């Protein structure tokens, strides 16, 4: 039943030996010990398990591990390190967009895919682009603020004037 699968996660190739019915989320958490992506509902509604695959945000609980074969998977662990935070991570800290923190990794990964696709996303576009991620603590106000701040920071970086 178990099958050998290769997964490309955060630029590293991992070989795992898993049953095909395991979800990508389960395998990231249980086999690769990348527990940044969270399981909040396991039915695709909360977005806490969001990771980026080939540049697109997906919900890890809605993808079987064989479906991720040959794709580049980016998780929160691959986004930035303590010394070198991604502007979104820095903005989430600076703008108090984090409370309990359970939605945070998924929220940041969704925002990352959104800003990659739409570097000049408006508040409306941010709100609708992140609607698949639920937060119960913040009322979303400071999350929007943080994503807008990261957007502006990233724009500065690409046009250093």
């Amino acid at each position, binding site marked *: 039943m178990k099958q050998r699968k290769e997964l490309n996660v955060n630029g590293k190739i991992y070989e795992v030996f898993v049953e095909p019915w395991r979800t990508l989320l389960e395998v990231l*958490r*249980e086999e690769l*010990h*990348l*527990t*940044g*992506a*969270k*399981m*909040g*509902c*396991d*039915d695709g*509604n*909360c977005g*806490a398990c969001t990771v980026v695959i080939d540049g697109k945000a997906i919900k890890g609980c809605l993808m079987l591990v064989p479906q991720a074969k040959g794709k580049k998977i980016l*998780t*929160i*662990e691959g986004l*930035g*390190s*303590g010394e070198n*935070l991604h502007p*979104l*991570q*820095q903005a*989430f*800290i*600076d703008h*108090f967009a*984090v*409370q*309990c*923190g*359970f*939605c*945070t*990794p998924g929220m*940041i990964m969704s925002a990352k895919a959104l800003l990659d696709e739409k570097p000049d996303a408006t*508040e409306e576009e*941010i*709100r*609708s682009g*992140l*609607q698949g991620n*639920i*937060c*119960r*603590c*913040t*009322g*979303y*106000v*400071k*999350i*929007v*603020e943080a994503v807008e701040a990261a957007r502006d920071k990233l724009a500065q970086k690409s046009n250093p004037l």
Partner: protein
Amino acid sequence: MSSNKFPTPTSVVGKSVPRVDALDKVLGRAQFTADLQRNFPGLFHIKVLRSPHAHARIVKLDTSQAGKLPGVRAVVTGKDCPEKVSFRAPRILALEEVIWAGEGVAAVAAESPEIAQEAIELIQVEYEKLPAVFDAEEAMQPNPPAIVDRLLGQYRGSPQFTPEAPNVTGHFKLRAGDVEKGFAEADIILENRFSTSRISHSQLEPASCIVRAESDGGIITWTNGQGVYVIKGLISDLFGLAVGKVRVINPYQGGSFGSRLRHYVEPLATLLALKARGTVQFTYSRQEMYLAASTRLPVVTYIKTGAKKDGTIVAQQMKIIVDNGASYAAIQDGRMAASGAVCVYRIANFFMDSYGVNTNTPWAGAYRGLGTPQVAWAVECQMDMLAENLGMSPIELRRKNVLRRGEKNAYGEIIESIGVMDCLEKVAQEIKLEEPCVQEPGPWRKGKGVAMGGKQNTPRGHSEAEVLVHEDGTVEVLYSADEQGMGSETVMAQIAAEEFRIPMGQVRVRRGDTAITPYDTFSASSFTTYNTGNALRMACQDAMRQILQAATQKMEAPLDDLALVNGKIIVKGSPGMALADLFEPFSIFTPQGGASLKKGTPVRGRGVFAPTPAIPWDPQTGLTPKMWNWYQYNACGVELVVNIETGEIKILQGVFAADMGFPINPKMCEGQIEGGFGMAIGASIMEEYIYENGLMTNCSYGDYRIPTFREMPLRRNVKAIFSPDPLPEGPWGAKGIGEGTMIAVAPAIANAVYNAIGIRIKDLPLSAERVLRRIKEKEKNDQDFLHN
């Protein structure tokens, strides 16, 4: 503690320093309970078989097939559970009868979640359906259609339990002044009935724990339940384990809002860990979070208010019915909820009966305000209706009746900190309440509304804290209150940094491990900053005293002339010395005892804070000079639009003012306000349990509608205002903020809906369906009126 009434903070207290947990959380490195499972190879996984019936007798329960399935380690039913029932937790598994749809009947621990699930499906159970009661008003009658729990009175040993009303769990009476006389003097009397729906906390992280049975018969539990010492006590008590052999560790908690105050995963996991003699993990599915976790108490409030023409309220009579659901443990006597009606207005003649009632519905308990928002919902809608009847502005009416500092409330307490009216004035001004809304063509009608409220703080238990001051000036803070996201770790770090005048980076917080951190209850009643914060200040000052004591000898200066500032001992009129120089290196020639400080040995400071206790109230009148501790206050103003064709409500603008006492971290206070506002939008316009024969049918994040980004106003249209009335005994004058932030929102929304479409809705939520139904009724009534 310092003798100054409000010592001025000089370093980090009062500043919006970044959260100490934020870095780990944005990196995905913060550890939540389920993240620890990877550390336990051979872990057993628990699944539970749950009742589909709201009330039924278990005729047959056969687990033999499940037990034989390869990979199954242990199977338990109600018969395996300890006989003891705790006030702190629901019954572990049903015994003879199931009393709500969702109650656990049997449970399995197996090598994988799949095997556990398959085993559950092999359990054969036969039910005989019994009459069920879902409505609290029916349930509280002398001859109810069903008795939710025949053993209730026996289990509880409650003096309030009466066989005549077998579903009533408690009754709080308030008899202040002379209500008959008050009504006789009134120029106007207004009577209404209000209700709120059952709602779910829906915190993002499901309840989860890992329990390891140790070889010596003890256990270690990692859990996201609240209050490590409370869980330690609960588990040792339920299972008769030696207290010293139960260790509870608390990783980060992914939200709670009161949900985790009752412990619904730890007891069953402990039972199975002991039976399996191994390590088990039990994590609720999202569906179980709706069916078998805590919920918010639905409340029905009857309110009759008498007022003079000038707006003075001369009498109020209330009947409050608090629905506990099928609760063995989380018993309400109605007193908590009732407080929502007492703490804001000056009502000399007040007659109130508040009841706790059991029904065959999912059990209910604490939820961001513990009943007070549900009662304030009635009071604040009533105030607007009264204002309209009197031809007064809602602000003026409230101004006339609001309690002021130094006055007595209806319990007889003297109020020492109340900023509620300032909150309301600021909100009304910000939202421009006096300016009428400009209507636009189309189906959307605009309206504005305001409301205010308060929440009592329970003087519960006591809190301890410790600090370890190291020779290099770094400080470790040890405490056991929770971090469910509200920022307690940051507040504690700020307090220590302030006391020692050191940068935040030199403080490390260690939290929530009964083998390491000192006693605390749990984070409830918005008291962590106040209780644990006060204890921590004492701990810091205790360590400081020890250090300065040691310095008196070295520096030959009296204690009063010394101070420790940022790692340096400062003496009046001398250059001072480094803290490190106080710590003596080890040598066989130095005396090792005595008052001197030793290298490598931190100075340990300890603080214990216990709030001033309540004074027992007269059970016949509810009167006492001290029912609670202090009150936080708030007000909310909203501008919204109502679609008269679909019934939808969109919140355009929200202004919220809070009196939380002195804000230790203003941005985090803002976060509490915005979060409470968002949560309250859900409770006000969308959230409710939908049932079929008592079984909840919308038990997922897809169908139980909590707010998304879309339901919030644009960020520039959400405004948080601070209007603190500092509390003398709070740390730097701080009170608390977490629970107050929902209270005023629902009535402000209902008042705004009335302003928009002239329809008064008295039942929550103001769902699109309910609003549209009322619009259609009104259209029909208006037509009938025209035709008659």
